[in-house]
Every structure is written in structure tokens, then in C-alpha cells.
């Protein structure tokens, strides 16, 4: 059972089809499977429905697929300051379905966990509730949200072993673990590829069962959307300075 593919193109071979639904991990530009997105761009596949919390920025992350007009519809919680996105949306060339971020995360988790629907208080009494079942439990109003699955999930992990066991680094974890469970096929790019037993089994976040194919991306370029820093003062980091 060979899960490791030589490059991103090989890892996606046979999986891409016009009109398909793809889940892409990441939050902002953090933990985004950028190398797999590049390969999807190069494949030319189109009319995609993409499930991702954000849509990258101009020319970076999923922004790459906007430039080439490969995306028909986004299911997201926040699309930010992307100019290409705004243009295509205002021109009616791009559909968008906004989900509250936590509802989006939970819908994906539910999809992967065989839960077709669940109730949440998030969005009750707002336009997000339009057309959804509402129900009262213990005196509070909740709306029903559906589980979400995709034809393909692409995720970015810090480290993976050849069995497909994955670990993530810091806030680059974000949507990747749930999406890994909710794709009919999940392809992972990993910064560090190791052998089974090289990851402590108590530390594994995504068990190998969820990962059908993987590719090693040792030179992944990482972007920062909002570079915020503080000046070094004479004294080194003291508690007084900590927020």
C-alpha cells in the first residue's frame, strides 16, 4: 500500500474532474496546501466548488485559482480583501455561500464523522437561519446545519509518516484535520516525510486511515498576511511587556 507519490501532479492524477467539490485546508495563508493548489491550477480543472475558510489573497493560496477562473463557487466564512474575488463576485461570475466559521468547521467535522445534520445556536435569529429547520431545545432556539463532504480534500501537514499519520504545527492545524476526514479522497502535502514509528502515536492528530495519498514538499514557501511585530527594547522579554 504505497501512499507516497513523487510529486503533487502524480498525487492528484486521476482525481480531478470539472465541477467537483474540493476542500482546502488553511486559515488565511497559514497551513494552506499551496503546492497542491498549484498542481490543481496547472491541471486546468474548472467549475470547482471550493470549501475553505478563506480564499487566499491575490495570487497566493486559493487566489491562484481565482486568477485562472477555475472556481465557480466558494463555501467560506470570510473572503477578506481579495480584489480578484470582489471583481468576479460583483460581476456575477463567482458564487459564495457564507457559513459562520464554527458552523463551517463543525459541518466538515460532521461530514467526516457520518453525522448528516446537527443543531447549533450559531446564526439563530439571523439571515443565516433562512430556509433551515429551527427547533427549540431546553428553551433555546437552534438551527439545523448539514454535514459537508467533498470529492477531494487537500491538506497541509508539518510531518507525516508513510502510513499517512499526520501532525500539524501550531496554528497551521486549523481546518486541516477535519477536512482530512471529509474528503472521499484526501491528499496531504507534508513538510517532513518520515517512517512509521518516527512520530509518537500519542501525538498523531490525523490517523493514516484518512490519508490516501501524500507528497513531500520540503521547500514549501510560507506567506504571512499581516506581519505584526514589536520593537526590541533594552530589556529582554519581561512579563511586563506580555499582553
Amino acid at each position, binding site marked *: 500500500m504505497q501512499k507516497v507519490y513523487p510529486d503533487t501532479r502524480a498525487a492528484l492524477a486521476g482525481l480531478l474532474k470539472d465541477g467537483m467539490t474540493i476542500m482546502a485546508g488553511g*486559515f*488565511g*495563508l*497559514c*497551513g494552506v496546501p499551496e503546492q497542491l493548489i498549484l498542481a490543481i491550477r496547472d491541471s486546468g480543472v474548472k467549475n470547482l466548488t471550493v470549501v475553505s*475558510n478563506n480564499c487566499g489573497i491575490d495570487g497566493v493560496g486559493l487566489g491562484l485559482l481565482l486568477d485562472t477562473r477555475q472556481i465557480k463557487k466558494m463555501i*467560506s*466564512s*470570510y*473572503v*477578506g480583501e481579495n480584489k480578484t474575488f*470582489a471583481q468576479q*463576485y*460583483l460581476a456575477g461570475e463567482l458564487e459564495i455561500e*457564507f457559513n*459562520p*466559521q*464554527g*458552523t463551517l*468547521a*463543525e459541518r*466538515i*467535522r460532521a461530514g467526516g464523522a457520518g453525522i448528516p445534520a446537527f443543531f*447549533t*445556536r*450559531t*446564526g*439563530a*435569529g*439571523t*439571515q*443565516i437561519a433562512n430556509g433551515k429547520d429551527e427547533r427549540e431545545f431546553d428553551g433555546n432556539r437552534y438551527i439545523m446545519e448539514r454535514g459537508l463532504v467533498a470529492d477531494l480534500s487537500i491538506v497541509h501537514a*508539518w510531518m507525516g509518516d508513510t502510513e499517512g499519520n499526520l501532525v*500539524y*504545527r*501550531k*496554528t*497551521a*492545524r*486549523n*481546518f*486541516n*484535520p*477535519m477536512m482530512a476526514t471529509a474528503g472521499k479522497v484526501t491528499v496531504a502535502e507534508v513538510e517532513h516525510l518520515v517512517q512509521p514509528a518516527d512520530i509518537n502515536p500519542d501525538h498523531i*492528530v490525523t490517523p493514516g486511515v484518512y490519508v490516501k495519498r501524500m507528497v513531500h514538499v520540503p521547500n514549501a514557501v*510560507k*506567506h*504571512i*498576511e*499581516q*506581519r*505584526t*511585530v*514589536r*520593537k*526590541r527594547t533594552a530589556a529582554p*522579554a519581561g512579563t511586563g*511587556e*506580555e*499582553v
Partner: protein
Amino acid sequence: MAWTREQMAERAAKELRDGFYVNLGIGIPTLVSNYIPQGMSVQLQSENGMLGFGPFPYEGEEDPDLINAGKQTVTEIPTTSYFSSADSFAMIRGGHIDLSILGAMQVAENGDLANWMIPGKMVKGMGGAMDLVAGVKKVVVVMEHSAKSEPKLLKRCTLPLTGAGVVDMVITDLGVFTIDKKRGGGMSLVELAPGATLEEIRSKTQASYYVGNALAAA
């Protein structure tokens, strides 16, 4: 001589308690972290998947894998833990975060909150705001009292809601209001900014509100 942005943040910081887990929105709410009293343990939650974070990194120490919900580079502290966004919103939706401080476009006297879209304008999305106001134990709004002379404290929000009956407290540059959202007891003005008067607030507020005893007597 109303409150400045910093003073509004300082006032909001008075709602912190030792041991609190807190989510701060973008803008003035972010400044609240500068006013956490020394010796008080307050852990900041970032809804992308982090509990316990520190200040911005020193120049050159930014880590692309370490950002807050505003996509800004931040730092780790000894208490930090990381988790998925599903686990993060389970924490929020499940009522485990004590306090959410966030900005708003409009707040209604019944606790309705609007802060995510203006019809006719390009909509960027609600991000985690709807989850936060629906799930966090106490929701404090920090905002300017009015926008270009348009009142923001209303009888009913005119903008699409972020949450219905969710706000517990509003801190503006002119004063502090509480909202009894659970029992429908309405809105009360409980504190005046230095120099602000009851008349000024009355003239700039569309919402109905009680005036707290201490203020009415003053």
C-alpha cells in the same frame, strides 16, 4: 472629553476576572490585552485554534505558522495549547469561553447585534463572530456611540443581525450600558464617561434605556 479608544479598552478590561478565558475581536478590543492587571491570569483565545497567546513577535521572529484570528503574527506563551478549528469552536459554542469583547455597527436594546454586513456593499463574511456571540458566556461590545451622527444604539437593528439577543454590555466613548438579554429586562445606562452628560447620551441614542440609580441621582 469622552473616552478615547484606549480608555474604552481600559474600561472593558474591568470586566476581566482572574482565571478568565477571553476572546478579543479586532480593533479596540485587541487593545484590552494591554490592560490586564498584573498578577491576574487571563488566557486569550484565538478562534483559529489557539488558547493562550502573547504579544506580537520581535522583528525577525515572525512565524508564518503562528497567527491569530486577525491573521496577525503572534507569540506562544508557557500556557499555550493548539487545536483544530472544529475543537476551537466547540470550545466557543459549548460556553467554555468566559468573555468575548468585540466591535459592532449596531446594537439594539434587546441585545441584538449587527456587525458583519451592509446590504449593497461587498460582503466579506462573518468569520467567527456569529459563533462567538452565540456561544460565549458574556458578550461585551466596544464601539463609538454614534457613527457620523447616526445612532448605533437602536430600538431595532436595521442591518442584518450577527446574533439575536446576545449582547450583555456595551461600552461606548460616552458610557457603559448593560442589557438584561436573558430575562428581557431591557437596557440600562450604568456609567458615564468623564464629561459625558445624560442629555448628550439621550440625544445620541435611539434605543430606550433605564438610567441606573447612581447616575439618575447624580
